[in-house]
């Protein structure tokens, strides 16, 4: 060994040691510069506000292809609002009760990924810190708005046990009843917090105003929204648990800050430069058209809103008509129904709740005799005029509509059906409604309820999820059953689809939890099992 050799070996040893010390940079190398870690986002409350921004954009998903499987290919169709002209999957798909597992877990997956997760991170960061209390309360409110929809699709959901894995790896579901109890409790605490904050400084916006895509940080508007939401949920459980319903409903009716009442109160999520997903699905994809029942009602009632909802058909066989596609029919090819009425191009906002709905909820509360609900007929008529107002329709046209006692749903004639006449719903059919618009306070309870729900349903468009839920609760409005039923006997044609099966991922990832959920559901996990609040009016 020469000196130079020893020197080199020494250098090598130093190099090796140097290597070891260099691993201290591994932490920074392995930190994604394009991602954000908690320390990056505390400035301007971004760590609290931005996740809630994400949650608002995902209650109804703002991205077309997500929205399509989250809601459009289920509730928007089941509610009678829309129908696809595309025979997906060889025309074996949700529209004719051949439920597509790849679609039906989407509402679940998107909710947990894009709403529950961001809200959970905010709840962790804000819990117990008084200065963050408005964020905490707001997060809970948004969580209820998002998750009651999920529960209304599937039934039992993971809510109070979120973030808690059992020793066996499973996660426990709440029954729908338990989930609703949690919803009411969350709403209570939110409204209490917001009422107090609003009373303390009525002119100041909430600290979360820059993240508020709906009301720009107005406490008062959020209180109205929360009250209306509580009333919605109370009405939902009014058949299964009248006492709970009345208690919760009357809280909302008594709140000094009130409910949503004018069109300007409508809860619309601003999705910025994103195009409305329904418009993209309809226009760019050609995957969704108007549903037959909605346009039959609107045509029958000569509803002035029809041109604000739908475009006239362009197919030569029906050109110029407002005609939708009936759900669950034979469709051989894309082209057959593509020229039926499309929805109009909606603005870049997502409709969560309308003021009109609040009036219809009050109308139902009134016929149920809840205190503070006011007069049912007044509420009903105000609901209609509020909706007309929302679309800029003058009071004369609205009055003519309200007072009409003869117009009823128009029969459905489909000239393009594969088998002639197969899709028609003619006068005299039990599936063709005979209910007129005008309120009559001497009507029996069921007639009044049918009128309220039918008009609420029309006013709610295009929000199919709530429309489908109320249809299942009341079986109003009268809708057309599917012509082709590919459910293999699990879903009754005459009783309609009652829910969606649990996400298939849940079976593989949380088998024990899912089995528990099926027990809580109280029936097989298919589309025919009614939910807890669904007392199945049949």
């Amino acid at each position, binding site marked *: 060994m020469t000196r130079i050799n020893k020197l080199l070996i020494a250098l090598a040893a130093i190099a090796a040691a140097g290597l070891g010390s260099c691993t201290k940079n*591994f932490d920074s190398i392995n930190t994604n510069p394009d991602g954000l870690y908690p320390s990056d986002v505390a400035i301007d409350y971004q760590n609290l506000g931005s996740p809630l921004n994400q949650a608002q954009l995902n209650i109804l998903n703002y991205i077309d292809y997500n929205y399509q499987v989250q809601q459009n290919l289920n509730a928007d169709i089941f509610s009678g609002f829309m129908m696809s002209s595309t025979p997906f999957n060889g025309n074996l798909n949700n529209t004719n009760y051949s439920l597509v597992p790849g679609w039906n877990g989407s509402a679940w997956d998107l909710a947990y990924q894009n709403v529950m997760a961001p809200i959970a991170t905010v709840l962790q960061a804000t819990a117990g810190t008084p200065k963050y209390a408005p964020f905490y309360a707001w997060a809970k409110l948004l969580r209820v708005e998002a998750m009651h929809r999920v529960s209304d699709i599937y039934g039992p959901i993971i809510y109070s046990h979120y973030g808690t894995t059992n020793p066996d790896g499973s996660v426990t579901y709440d029954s729908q009843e338990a989930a609703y109890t949690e919803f009411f409790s969350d709403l209570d605490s939110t409204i209490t917090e917001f009422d107090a904050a609003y009373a303390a400084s009525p002119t100041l916006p909430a600290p979360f105003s820059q993240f508020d895509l709906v009301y720009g940080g107005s406490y008062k508007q959020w209180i109205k929204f929360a009250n209306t939401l509580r009333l919605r949920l109370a009405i939902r459980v009014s058949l299964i648990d009248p006492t709970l319903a009345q208690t919760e409903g009357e809280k909302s009716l008594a709140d000094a800050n009130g409910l949503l009442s004018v069109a300007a109160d409508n809860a619309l999520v601003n999705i910025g430069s994103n195009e409305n997903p329904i418009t993209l699905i309809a226009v760019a994809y050609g995957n969704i058209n108007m549903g037959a029942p909605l346009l039959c009602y609107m045509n029958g009632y000569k509803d002035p809103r029809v041109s604000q909802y739908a475009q006239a058909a362009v197919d030569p066989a029906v050109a110029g008509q407002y005609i939708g596609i009936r759900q669950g029919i034979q469709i051989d090819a894309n082209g057959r129904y593509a020229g039926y009425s499309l929805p109009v191009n909606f603005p870049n906002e997502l409709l969560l709740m309308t003021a009109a709905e609040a009036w219809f909820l009050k109308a139902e509360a009134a016929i149920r005799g809840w205190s503070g609900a006011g007069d049912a007929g007044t509420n009903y008529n105000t609901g209609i005029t509020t909706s007309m107002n929302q679309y800029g329709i003058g009071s004369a046209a609205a009055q003519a509509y309200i007072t009409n006692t003869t117009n009823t749903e128009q029969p459905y004639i489909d000239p393009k059906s594969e088998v002639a006449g197969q899709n028609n719903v003619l006068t005299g059919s039990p599936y063709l409604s005979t209910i007129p618009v005008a309120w009559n306070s001497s009507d029996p309870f069921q007639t009044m309820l049918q009128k309220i729900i039918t008009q609420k349903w029309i006013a709610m468009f295009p929000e199919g999820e709530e429309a489908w839920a109320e249809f299942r609760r009341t079986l109003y409005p009268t809708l057309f059953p599917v012509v082709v039923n590919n459910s293999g006997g699990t879903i009754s044609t005459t009783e309609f689809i009652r829910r969606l099966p649990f996400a298939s991922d849940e*079976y593989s990832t949380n088998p024990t939890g899912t089995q528990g959920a099926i027990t809580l559901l109280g029936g097989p996990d298919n589309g025919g099992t009614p939910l807890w609040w669904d007392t199945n009016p049949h």
Partner: protein
Amino acid sequence: MRKINLSRRMIGCFLGMQLFCFVAARSQSTYAYSAPSRQALQQKGPGDSKPGDNTQKQTQFSTITGKVVAADGTPVPGVSVTIKGARGGTSTNAAGAFSIEANKGDVLVFSYIGYTTQEVAVSSSTLSITLLASAKQLNEVVVTALGIQRQAKSLTYSVQKVGNDQLTTVQDASFVNSLTGKVAGIVIAKSSSGIGGSTRVTLRGNHSTRNNQPLYVVDGVPLVNFSPAQPGDEFGQSGVGYVGLDGGDGISNMNPDDIESVTVLKGAGAAALYGSAAANGVILITTKKGKAGKTRVDVSSSLTLDSRMYKTPLQFKYGQTTTPSLGNPGSLDSWGSVVDAPDHVDPFFQTGSSNFNSIAISGGTDRSQTYLSYSFTDNTGNIPTVSLNRHNLNFRQTTKYFDDRLTSDINVLFINQDAHNRPPSGVYDNPLTGLYLFPRGLNFNQYKQYSVYSPLRNTGIQNWWDANYDSTQVYGSAWNSSNSANEQNPYWILHRVTTDNDLNRVYSNISLNYKLNSWLNIQLRGNVDKSWNTITQKPYATTSTVLTAANGGYNVLNVTNTQYYSDLLLSANHKLTNDLGLSATAGVAVNDQVADQTGIGTKNSGNGLAFANVFTVNNILPAAILVTPTYTHKQVQSAFLTAQLNLKQFLYLDVSARNDWSSSMAYTPVVNRGFFYWSAGLTGVLSDMVHLPDPISFAKVRVSYAVVGNDADAYASHPPEFTIDNQNGLVTNGTGPEPGTYLKPESNRSFEVGTAWRFFNDRAGFDFTYYLNNNLHQYITTEAPAGAAENQYGYAYTTWALNAGNIRNQGVELSVDFTPVKERHLIWTSTVNYAFNKNLIVSISDPSVKSSTDYQTLTGIGNLLYASYMKQGGQWGDIYGYYFQRNASGAIVVNSSGAPQEGADTSANPPVGNPALKKLGNPMPKFTLGWSNSFTVNRFVLNVLFDGKFGGQVMSVTQAYLDFNGDSKASQMARDKGGVYVNAVTATGGKFGGINPQTWYTTVGGLSGISENYIYSATNIRLREASLAYQIPTKAAWVKGLSVSVIGRNLFFVERKAPFDPEISSATNNGLQGVDTFGLPSTRSVGASVKLGF
């Protein structure tokens, strides 16, 4: 800011290493090339002497001189000349001359790479030696891990070497494609994007849920082989805006003429020393160096004409179903009456050409050699406008200093490549969809004018049969203002949805090797490889509105890849006793890789661009701009040791050990201890141990076992809480390690045993290998139960990243070569390469992991025909899809109108969670066979290579789509016959014959038909390469070689069952294997080449 700080710190660390440790030495194989004289060694002192040195002979030295020439009489410089049984020696100079001190009676050993080692007893003071080119296996020297050269016979694992002539006689723009059929166990799939497209290479099957491609190593240094973009589904979408792009891969940039040889290390055992990146095997590339002696110039040029190897079977007999009328363009499909339309498809294609030109200058002295080369590649595709140009400049300088103790080797490479309109794969923005689907009976020629003036837009707009954007002005009647995304004017796409992929790359390598003494040297190597790749796409206004906004779009993907690599090796090569030799290398290495991508795209809705058809980034409307940065940085530091002990040069024991520390393991307990892996192997050269019967000239057996680790992807162990969506703010990140667990390295365990025999004086031989490979603790992402344990940020991940599962590959490889004829005027040599691989997904879940599924998605089904899942008990790459409903006797169930019904799994647990899907096939071949023959007749050399892949299934979405629209030949034949005759029954059991072709094909075909109908056998045999070369005799003294060749590649199929080339794949990453969606047909290349050396 963070990026800059981080890289500064990294550079600081790196420079620190440079200062301290960048001195290294290189192993000089088993031979010392030159050394000081024996006397000098003797003076070094007792420490270097071994007992047994024959000091008595010292006084009897005399000087022996001589010259070493090759068989053709040319001097061979650099030949090692040693005295048998003694240390030291010398090497020949540029003129092949040598001088050495030796005694009469000593035996001189002459050895040189590529030649048979010769032993000559000293009988006079001048010697003349003629070296013979070495027989395979016997004394061949191959480059192994870290650039260490080894005698092939000593290896304990299977390697296969491919020489330059096998790569360059019949060239492909990407040399990797030339390996097909020449190496047993290699499976090569080309992307369908034509020339210069990326290549998927697998060795011994697919092992991993992530990367399955081998590591490329150039002269001992790992090469970055990033592939910036690949299509992700059958539509061809590969991220926002980047429709269907194959971004090319790094390895395809190399100039094949610069390659001296390629060595394929197939198993993990061969690759253990390269660390985690080598778990899929290694392809070692040795590039050319300058050679001492007279300066030599080599010029080569080739031109091939490329045409389609097959035509997609189409029909032109039946016309459009609904013909145009006022206000209605008519239908896309062609189920109408007989029109006998002209074939508009054939004339669309053109003859492409590939032109390779290269010049290389090589020369130098004993001390310093230079190699300089430049090559230019110019390709045009066989559809219009498609082209690829490439310039490669390569400089290499090898110099010796300080009495030849220090050797420096410097290599600088510059590559510039422009690919224009590389054809996309998938349905979107693909010229072939519009071409193939064009309604029969309309006049295609009228749309060669792809753009018509629009008074409304005051510019040219897409002119296509169903696009009538400017309806009232141009046509006076209205129809749809937007045409389909799935078929557009092919000429519009070529001229108005252009894509450009421009690459610049600089690769530089410095190596310093210092010989400490006769048996020990130290080598330092440093490498910087940096490439800049820009992919731009410019869709003009009125490109399909589904894909492009009203004013057009501009999509740019900028990719900068940087690798810093350096290593320090200390190598020893020592005879412990007369019988026992040891060679060992210890070293450290650091490899730092950064892939920095920024995608800037335009939303496909709204106006997109502020000013139509102005393609600049600042013209993208704020509401429409989509920015997607991806920055991945990983650093791996390693320490390793490899040693080989040989007993009498007939029994070799190999061990290697390596420990890696990877930055991707930061934030886990693994980070500090890193991960350790090792290999061990044993080889016995039977023919040297015992006397074997005469016909056997060589025999050896070998066995080895290796464990190779693999680190995680960057950031996987430390995911951020949020990612940023530039349009919509923060998004909660949904994927991370299951709370309470951390990611561990993968473990790839491989065993192989093999034997090699040679017979009849090297006239024949074979090499056989059996291997078994288990790849455990795979990285898997699995759906987490909703709302399961919350992470450190307080929420529940929806997807867990974890280690689970085992993918097993086992198989055999057999390579046989023989020389049936060896006459003076005719030599016929023949080689057969056979490989069989069986893949099994032993498990994909792990009992210790709660709630993991037994399948993993490679490509999801979407609403399309093709999906691929890795399912426990299945095989990697299994194709899933929709299938026929069949009755008990297997007949297809149809409805009352004859439409086949789709099957559904009514059990509670369908195989991959979807009742409509079942396994339909697997695209990987059961076995592969390559057969090459070389006939030398005087000055003519004829080479012929047949290549076959047997077994496996592929899917054609193209066929499904053509069938659906009545454009396929099959649909015509069914109509000609008056029905589709299959074994079909109705639900009630009644036989159903002669199904209406339209009913049948519109049900089974299309993008959401019945996949099962489009599964084909992947078996194919083709004449892969043929060449006839002629050595032109010349009397000019300055000409060292002149040859001309006629060459052909992909000449014809001997057998093919699928309607496309099954070797072509929609993507070269893990998804979309074995499916064709309007891919470009393979090309047949025929041409000529000239090589001149002077």
